């Protein structure tokens, strides 16, 4: 009871995204390839290539649409590796290369015990390893994933991808990163989810991607800005007389 009260007090008055660690664990690249392991997904009711398709759909429908964030998930391949004997998401992450995410189906009963009573659909996470940050998530192939509708499955995968990107749970019930899918219809990210991803992966270039995917150095940025200044000055100098409201209206 005391523990429950403590939990209530700690989570009271908070509404917003969280991070899995402090300081945050995050990727150090802007394009993150997501691969699928060769473990059988039969008991989750799909093939590996269907899982890979759903991973791509989850990335495109959710995380890759955040215009304020500078990160993109990229569809990878089915890779010949097995995650089924691993008992934590951290162990799964350690098997992949830096700045990639590995996804697989697991029937490991240490990781996903008591299938009848466990409502866990999957686990996801990110870790820092000696060679760099790596992400993973495992679908609970012992549990209820198989019984979810198509769009719920994609939302669950998107939620786990959120963990693999470094986000924790949100206290915002509508957010994709809320711990429970419940009865809600999750078609898009909420602003809270978008702000979380933006916080982790901001666009720090002041003159960013709309000039192409070229990386600008600082000098170039300043040069572009002085061009804008020059443009403004040109317009200023073109002003022959001080415009008045009447002058403007009849112009």
């Amino acid at each position, binding site marked *: 009871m005391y523990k429950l009260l403590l*939990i209530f007090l700690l989570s009271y008055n*908070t509404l917003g*995204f969280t991070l899995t660690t402090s300081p945050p664990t995050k990727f150090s690249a802007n394009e993150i390839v997501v691969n699928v392991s060769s473990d059988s997904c039969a008991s989750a009711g799909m093939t590996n290539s269907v899982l890979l398709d759903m991973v791509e759909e989850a990335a495109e429908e959710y995380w890759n649409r955040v215009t304020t964030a500078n990160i993109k998930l990229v569809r990878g391949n089915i890779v010949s590796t097995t995650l089924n004997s691993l008992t934590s998401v951290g162990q799964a992450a350690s098997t992949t290369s830096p700045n990639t995410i590995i996804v697989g189906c697991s029937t490991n009963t240490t990781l996903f015990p008591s299938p009848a009573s466990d409502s866990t659909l999957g686990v996801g996470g990110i870790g820092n390893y000696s060679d760099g940050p790596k992400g993973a998530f495992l679908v609970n192939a012992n549990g209820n994933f198989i019984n979810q509708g198509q769009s719920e499955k994609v939302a669950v995968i998107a939620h786990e991808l959120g963990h693999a990107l470094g986000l*924790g749970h949100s206290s915002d019930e509508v957010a994709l990163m809320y711990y429970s899918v419940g009865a809600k219809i999750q078609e898009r990210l*909420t602003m809270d989810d978008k702000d979380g991803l933006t916080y982790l992966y901001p666009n720090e270039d002041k003159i960013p991607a709309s000039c192409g995917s070229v990386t600008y150095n600082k000098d170039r940025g300043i040069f572009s800005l002085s061009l804008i200044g020059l443009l403004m000055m040109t*317009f200023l100098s073109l002003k022959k007389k001080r415009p008045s*409201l009447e002058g403007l209206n009849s112009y």
Partner: protein
Amino acid sequence: MLKIITSTLILLLSINSYSLVGAGGYVPFGFSTQKDADGSRRTFSFEPYIFINGVLRAPYNHIFLPELGYVFHTSEKYDDYKKSTMFLLLDLGYMLRPNLVLRYGVGIFKTSISSDGGAVTLANGSGTSTYYRPNESKTTYNTTWNLGIEKSWTRNYATKFELYLFEPISSKRDISYSLSLAYYL
């Protein structure tokens, strides 16, 4: 960014000919962001914003309309973190009619997200887990293409609707929009 904003502000205020101040509502990414558990979007979730807008004569029946704005993110309860948006628009205005201006141009949006850190215990499957709130301020920049229409009703008042296409040539492009009332100083 601060430098650009300060110099723009000085420029706008030093144009003693005239400028506009205004206030209204700004909807960030209204079509692409979910608001409620039924899947509905934030289409009409206007966030209050204020702006100052210079008006300078330009050739070919145009006016130059540099604008500086600030958005207060209040329509969602960000109890746990702070968020603010500042933007600079470099729009040209084409006088369709004496009281109707078509605006188009480019913009820079600067969004900051910050919080003061701390651990949070939240539900996680059948148990609970500890997660962390952000403890820094992070700033993200976006460029936009803008398209808007401004109609003046009297000598002093005008209404303005403007669309902002974020990251126009990226696959992440998205739309924000604003509706506002402007007052001619």
